[in-house]
């Protein structure tokens, strides 16, 4: 049935952190929540898990309102930055404690992942380095086996090798025991092929929400001599242009696959990261122009 978020708004003083957010997270989907720092990703996760009360709107999980319903909230696990374990608790003990709260917690898998990542389960949680503290929280998230998993910047502080190991462990978990995963990150390129659905959040509002494939359909970058590129893109939906001397490259949205490309120009599929950056730049420009108009 999934998670239905409707008309969620949340203010912190004069800052509007979420603006009438509507979002549906379907069962067995792998979602990427993409946004710059301060866009509202963590706030949205905190509202979904009822750690923050929204000013208005509602969250439903499998049809039931989450507000103060522990049974409903038990279906969601959020991996964030905080630890909720007693200070002097050891990793292995924390795994045992987790199985009490999450009956489906796979302790054997948690110990296996701990070995793979080289985490010392006899160590106190608070004595773990930043990277290993992240790995510890990530292992918990991958093993609780709740139907919904929210991962807030899960690879923060992880080196390249550990990030790769994490993505592989996540894909394996998702493929073997289907669940709904939402992963918030600003390392877009690393998750581009992993997520099936991209949700772009900016300034507390959702500006794109589509399957990754659909989002990038018709998104091409056209490059070549400046005047030739300009001729070709005239009348088409140009999202961004970058110029290096006499060469220019334009990111087009909504270009049909069979449009012939003139000689001397090159056409390349836009990546999710290219698209995201172009989208953010465009929104920024729109903000600036609307500001100057109001002045």
């Amino acid at each position: 049935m999934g998670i239905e978020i409707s008309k969620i708004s949340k203010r912190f003083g004069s800052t509007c952190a979420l603006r009438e957010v509507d979002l549906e997270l379907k069962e067995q989907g792998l979602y990427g929540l993409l946004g710059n720092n301060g866009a509202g990703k963590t706030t949205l996760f905190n509202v979904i898990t009822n750690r923050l009360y929204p000013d208005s709107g509602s969250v439903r999980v499998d049809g039931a309102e989450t507000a103060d319903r522990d049974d409903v909230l038990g279906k969601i696990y959020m991996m964030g930055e905080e630890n909720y374990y007693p200070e002097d608790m050891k990793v292995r003990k924390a795994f045992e404690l987790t199985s009490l709260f999450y009956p489906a917690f796979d302790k054997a898998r948690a110990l296996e992942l701990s070995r793979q990542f080289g985490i010392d389960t006899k160590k106190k949680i608070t004595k773990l380095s930043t990277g290993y503290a992240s790995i510890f929280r990530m292992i918990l998230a991958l093993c609780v086996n709740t139907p919904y998993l929210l991962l807030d910047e899960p690879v923060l502080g992880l080196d390249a090798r550990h990030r790769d190991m994490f993505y592989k462990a996540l894909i394996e978990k998702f493929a073997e025991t289907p669940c709904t995963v939402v992963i918030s990150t600003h390392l877009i390129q690393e998750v581009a092929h992993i997520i099936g659905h991209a949700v772009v959040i900016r300034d507390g509002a959702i500006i794109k929400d589509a399957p990754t494939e659909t989002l990038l359909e018709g998104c091409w970058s056209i490059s070549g001599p400046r005047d030739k590129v300009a001729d070709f893109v005239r009348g088409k939906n140009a999202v961004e242009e970058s110029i290096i001397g006499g060469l220019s490259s334009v990111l087009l949205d909504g270009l049909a696959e069979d449009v012939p490309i003139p000689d001397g120009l090159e056409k390349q599929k836009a990546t999710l990261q290219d698209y995201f950056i172009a989208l953010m730049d465009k929104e920024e420009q729109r903000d600036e122009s609307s500001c100057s108009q109001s002045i």
Partner: protein
Amino acid sequence: MIRYLNQERPIFLQIADMLKDAILSGAYPEDSQIPSITEFSVAYNINPATALKGVNLLVEEGLLFKKRGLGMFVASGARKQLIGQRKEGFYRDYIQPMIWEAKHLEITSGELLEMTERGMEEHGDRNQ
């Protein structure tokens, strides 16, 4: 057999190509089981649905078949079918660009034939 994925083509098509190469080279022999969707998606860091889409392309072409409860297998005759497919593309993908470049370099058809003979000899002319 693990190649890096590129940005130029959709990922599921690249997975399909990789599978075809593997069947052609004998890395995945006929009647043998291929790795699972989980293994492919983990190896390439891709969404399992994308891996499945690539595998399904080969199922549609009759190169792979599903054994219920067991997994995917390479069909018998798959290699021959692939060779047939590739031969059709050979003229367009290799001969035409070669002629094009040969013209640029002012290579005559006699010289071209000579080079082809030499190439075949150097590779042991296995198919003759």
